[in-house]
């Protein structure tokens, strides 16, 4: 049986598919968040070095991971949109940027509130923190450039250039704690070493990361649907959609 891989690259079919998927991701995000926070606050023990302050980890690490993952995904969709001229890919990339920027801001904010009691300072210009701040500027640059160009197809292409050039920053963020001497601690989770923290702490953090994933997917789908409607408002299927809802 031949599968038509391009069926869902049409904005119209994706619009309906996304509409069906959003409730599942939203519910999963809420359930995982409740479970993750319960483990984080009521199961995970007090840290022997950092006391209760370490509990910021349950949102700090997921936010930081999401900021990097979302940037890479945004760059991949931008690149696909640029290479194959598929409208939907670029719309997804545009839809990812605000959520990615929000998670980047949250990683910096929670990091500052964690740094103050542990390092004695809200901010230092070290490699990890500075490269994460550059990531925030890349997201903002992507969004402002796209907002400044009236023609959506040209805005897609210009944004894709920023996204693709800026993706080099993601490995820099990730490896910054190895390449340079930084105040920031090393990677929390590594594939090659056994975890350095209590297993309940790790479980809580991973469940919160999954919750953030589900939340981000739901948000991106909702925003993509809005962008599809905005850009396709003159097409027959959007007209029919409105006729059906009235």
């Amino acid at each position, binding site marked *: 049986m031949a599968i038509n891989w391009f069926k869902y690259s049409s904005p119209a079919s994706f619009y309906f598919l996304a509409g069906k998927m959003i409730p599942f991701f939203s519910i999963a995000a809420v359930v995982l968040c409740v479970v993750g926070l319960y483990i984080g606050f009521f199961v995970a*023990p007090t840290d022997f070095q950092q006391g209760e*302050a370490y509990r910021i980890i349950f949102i700090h690490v997921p936010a930081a991971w999401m900021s990097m993952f979302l940037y890479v995904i945004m760059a991949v969709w931008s690149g696909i949109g640029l290479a194959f001229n598929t409208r939907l890919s670029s719309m997804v990339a545009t839809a990812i940027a605000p959520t990615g920027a929000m998670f980047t801001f949250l990683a910096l904010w929670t990091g500052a509130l964690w740094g103050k*009691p542990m390092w004695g300072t809200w901010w230092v210009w070290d490699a990890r923190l500075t490269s994460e701040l550059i990531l925030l500027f890349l997201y903002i640059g992507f969004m402002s450039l796209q907002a400044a160009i009236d023609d959506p197809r040209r805005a897609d292409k210009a944004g894709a250039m920023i996204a693709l050039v800026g993706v080099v920053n993601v490995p820099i963020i990730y490896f910054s704690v190895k390449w340079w001497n930084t105040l920031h601690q090393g990677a929390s989770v590594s594939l090659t070493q056994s975890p350095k923290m209590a297993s309940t702490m790790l479980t809580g953090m991973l469940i919160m990361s999954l919750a953030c994933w589900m*939340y981000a997917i739901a948000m991106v789908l909702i925003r993509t649907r809005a962008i599809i409607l905005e850009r396709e408002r003159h097409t027959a299927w959007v007209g029919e959609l409105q006729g059906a809802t009235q």
Partner: protein
Amino acid sequence: MSWAGLSDFLDMGGYGLYVWGSYAVFLICIAGEIILVSNRKRTLLKHLSLIHQSTKQEKRNETAS
């Protein structure tokens, strides 16, 4: 982990300001994004239904004339 009571929980071993300051801003950002996205959708649908009504009206006028 067991807490002695609500005030112990809120105190977070003396780090209450930092822990709750992080969680509060996290919550505000997520709530804000959800509100912004649903507003965008609502205004868009209102706008689209206006377009739809006006095109229907135009068609009606065309057939009448």
